């Protein structure tokens, strides 16, 4: 496979090209969730977690649940339940390794997103686990986030993407199914993909 060797710019070049952010842009970054950010989070059913191990290897993974599933215990402390998943647990192993997290939270229909950066730990506190029960299912673990930076990210990215435009959903039909992708990456016959798709349709009925 061809490897590319593109020129890399340095920070001085980057700054000279972009300029510096306007003061109001940096002033909106606070260290906690104010009343409006709390309201944003209370209506958000989806977020992406970015974490890295101590060597700096990065990972970004999705989390979704009932709106408000990322619960603010106070304006600087958030709790994210760990639901049924693939058990690879990249996010949590990274958190155990380097203890830092970045979050990007979405509200369907809203073009702005909420960015939260801070430190994180993994807990099994029984009171928190009971609090995070959903549809009969009590999680075994949860991520606790201590916020350091919180700010609303402007909506241009989602506007350009047309992310909430219902007509954009026709894109999904053009993408290979999850079974096809899985079979291909695992080196299995494409017919196995159909079996996986059928199995996933059943498995997706148990969300918790």
């Amino acid at each position, binding site marked *: 496979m061809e490897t590319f060797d593109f020129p890399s710019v340095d920070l001085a070049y980057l700054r000279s090209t972009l300029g510096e952010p306007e003061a109001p842009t940096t002033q909106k970054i606070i260290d906690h969730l104010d009343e409006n950010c*709390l*309201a944003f989070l*209370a*209506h958000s059913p989806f977020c992406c977690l970015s974490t890295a191990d101590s060597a700096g290897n990065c990972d970004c993974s999705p989390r979704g649940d*009932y*709106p*408000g*599933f990322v*619960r603010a215990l106070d304006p600087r402390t958030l709790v994210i339940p760990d639901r049924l998943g693939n058990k690879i647990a990249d996010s949590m192993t990274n958190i155990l390794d380097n203890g830092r997290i970045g979050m990007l939270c979405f509200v369907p229909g809203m073009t702005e997103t909420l960015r939260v950066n801070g430190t994180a730990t993994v807990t099994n506190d029984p*009171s*928190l686990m*009971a*609090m*995070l*029960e*959903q*549809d*009969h299912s009590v999680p075994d673990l949860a991520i606790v986030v201590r916020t350091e930076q919180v700010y609303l990210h402007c909506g241009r990215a989602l506007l350009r993407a047309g992310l909430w435009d219902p007509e954009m959903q026709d894109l999904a039909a053009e993408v290979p199914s999850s079974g096809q992708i899985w079979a291909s990456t695992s080196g299995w016959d494409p017919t196995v993909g159909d079996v996986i798709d059928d199995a996933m349709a059943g498995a997706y*009925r*148990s969300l918790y």
Partner: protein
Amino acid sequence: MLPLVVSEVTRETPSIVSVRLASPDGEPLPLWQPGAHIDVQLITRHERQYSLCGDPADAHGYRIAVLREEFSRGGSHYIHSFLRVGSRVWVRPPRNLFTLADAPAYRLLAAGIGITPILAMARHLAAEGADWQMTHLVRRREDIAFASELAALGDRVTTHIGAEAGRLDLAALYAGLEPATAVYACGPQRFVDALDDLAAALPGGAAVHVERFEPKPREHRPNEVFTVTCARSDVVVEVPAQRPMLEALQGAGVPVEGSCLRGICGSCAVTVLEGIPEHRDSLTGDDASMTIYPCVSRSISPGLVIDA
């Protein structure tokens, strides 16, 4: 579900708000009787059950009251922090699993937020001219919700403030009741469990009717696989050991609606036509009952036939 809007939010105590829900177009709402509750679905899709505590004659609004819980599973937290006048909610029409039966005398017992159905009952009994007494238990004086409404009911209402008067002697209270008295009680788990235990220990004593917020702890058999034949839908559903029967039925497209998923609200009730159900809910008093709540209950026989 009825699409309603919040028309009033009132702080009743430091930890309780009452919320009035009305139809957006001012249309009258389905009627209800004291003891009834509604299932309220918030915009976050959390669905919770709340007793109606307003005036049944108010055909344009339902009033509920909600306690702020420190470790809320989502509903109480959202209502206390984010619900506003104008917020949209979706409501299943009132159902009553806590109806007042005819009795020569009534003793109403409300602990904490358990005041909600009991207040509606007290108002009804007062209007009917019934023989009734009510004891309202709260921890501190500032925890008395609906104080002026209770005061208007007169001296049949006794308020017991635990922080000032100490623990109420529930056993003495119960032992002092005429056997024909009907007891209606609502409150936290420990309180209703204590009453249930008192009634069980004194056969022939006053009949106790309780409403629970939390499922009654029950011993049950280990989960086993069983099949459910749905007579009307003409399908046979296998219920795996680790999956609730309701989920299996819904997964097979059988039209059964659930709400609390904890065996306390009664939304998912279905009738068993054949087989021996294993009741694990907090509503069924008679193990031989053929009404089953599939959100928690299962089967003793290898198969059930249900009317669904």
